[in-house]
């Protein structure tokens, strides 16, 4: 760090009323609605509490109980499968869509972007209704596919994916992918558009085709965006709640009983606030580790 000639430090002056009011408001608001609840979650995790009866401190019992809770372990597994499969596939699809859109003329680009963005602004609760009907075996997409294939002379029996233990999670994954495809694609599109065109022109003169241009120009320059999107996608995907709560209700069996849903139920159906808070802390730790490790990997791999 070189000491660059700096402007002389301004002498301490009494902060204006604007500074005082805004800074204090910010401090109070974020303390009250973020810091306090976060510390409280940590504390409640060590208690037995149903909001009504007396509070019983139980030490690490809630955390120990998790290790013996088969439903919790199942929820952890289901969430891991969901997030682990969803995030890489979704990010790849978003990147491909973004790259395709970047190569389109302004008008078709706008039209397609609008189309793919509609699911993003659709509330989950309406998407759930739409898909509930679309997934219907008889009246929806499975029936349609069966009709098409039988017209081709092939017998198929597509059924509602949410009805079976094996495919329910896949069904919700598909919905989630559909819902956020346009969002990620837009972010990649904007990122690709910020890459200077001269780079591509130089590559073209050197005889690089579309694939090599993507591999050697777009991809390296898009990686910081990929990293940011990846971190936020993990955080978002693990917390997806609405479709599981409304559509599958965790079923069939416990096939879609994800972490967030189980946490909600422990708190608001079973009134085990202590246990649910301990679970929230586990979720926080998992996401923290995921984020930090992605940043670390990015740093060692990408910085020379």
């Amino acid at each position: 760090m070189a000491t660059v000639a700096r402007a002389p430090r301004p002498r301490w002056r009494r902060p204006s009323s604007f500074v005082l009011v805004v800074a204090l408001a910010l401090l109070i608001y974020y303390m009250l609605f973020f810091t306090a609840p976060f510390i409280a979650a940590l504390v409640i995790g060590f208690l037995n509490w149903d909001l009504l009866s007396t509070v019983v401190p139980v030490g690490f019992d809630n955390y120990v109980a998790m290790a013996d809770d088969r439903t919790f372990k199942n929820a952890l597994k289901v969430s891991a499968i969901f997030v682990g499969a969803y995030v890489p596939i979704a990010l790849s699809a978003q990147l491909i869509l973004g790259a395709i859109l970047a190569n389109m003329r302004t008008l078709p680009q706008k039209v397609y972007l609008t189309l793919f963005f509609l699911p993003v602004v659709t509330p989950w609760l309406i998407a759930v209704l739409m898909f509930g009907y679309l997934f219907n075996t008889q009246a929806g997409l499975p029936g349609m596919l069966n009709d098409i294939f039988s017209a081709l002379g092939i017998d198929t029996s597509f059924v509602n994916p949410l009805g079976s233990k094996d495919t329910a999670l896949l069904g919700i994954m598909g919905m989630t992918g559909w819902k956020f495809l346009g969002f990620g694609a837009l972010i990649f599109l904007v990122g690709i558009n910020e890459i200077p065109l001269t780079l591509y022109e130089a590559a073209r003169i050197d005889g690089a085709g579309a694939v090599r241009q993507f591999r050697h120009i777009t991809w390296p320059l898009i990686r910081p965006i990929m990293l940011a999107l990846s971190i936020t996608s993990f955080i978002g995907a693990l917390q997806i709640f609405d479709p599981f709560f409304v559509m599958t209700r965790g079923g069939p069996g416990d096939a879609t009983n994800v972490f967030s849903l189980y946490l909600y139920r422990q708190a608001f159906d079973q009134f085990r606030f202590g246990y649910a808070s301990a679970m929230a802390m586990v979720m926080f730790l998992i996401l923290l580790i995921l984020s930090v490790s992605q940043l670390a990997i990015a740093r060692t791999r990408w910085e020379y």
Partner: protein
Amino acid sequence: MGLLGTRSAASAPTVATSSLSTFRSRLRRDVAAWALVIVFLPVSVAAALPFIWMYLSSFKTPTEIHSLTITWFPSEFYLEGYEYALEHFALVRGYANSVFVSGIGVLASVVTSAMAGFLFAKKQFWGKNLLFIFILSTLMVPFFAIFIPSYVVYAVFLNIKDTYMALILPHVFTAFGILITRQFLHSVPNELIDSATVDGAGDWRVFWYIILPLSRSVLAAIAILQFLGSFNEFLWPLVMVDNQNLYTLPLVMRKVTAAQGPHPSRMLAASVLGLTPIVIFFLIFQRHIVRGIALTGVKG
């Protein structure tokens, strides 16, 4: 703006080449670009399929919906679903509640974002960096980590469960709006503010007459993103609101889902009624939404 200009549109040849070869290569690029559009058409139709299917099916009669042969277009314009949905689901009330809650929240968050952005971009005070890092760090906290104690804070300490306040308060400040406004105001020259200060304007006046109008475009982007976010919120209203008069649209839609029966057209009509205003809103403000996401996604 050029933010979303296409790659090819801007790549006009810089070196004078023979006009014929320029024409040829341009033609080839044109053909390639349009071929891409056409090849891509089925994919986008697939993405739109759930919407198309819902809009068409909402006009189908129950027998048509349940018939074994699938028809795309309704044979008659059946409106019973719409009549029923309007009569039995509190859609209008839900909409009014959602718009009210989100509207007030957005208004508040836009003003606070501009204030805090001004504070962090242009003001000097003790502990500024610390406060900024503190606010940034709240962006890393997943909602579920503070979900349960937040419920306790609202329901027990503040005792505002089942009030509009409980739905508005979480949106009064937005770390992400503060971040974007701060970044934007960094690019505003200090002279603009200094000249006003020399003229005797205090911070409040500078904020109101210079900062606020200046950041209009950024604030519009924040406002729309915030609006969509809080409009679609489900889990928080779910635990905060028991009184059906305060149900926001997502809560009303949940009741619609729960009412699934032999009449899918009613349910679908309710979804169409719920979704259409959002789609119109989106189409009107699309530019701001795209810009907002571009601002937050890439720079954030």
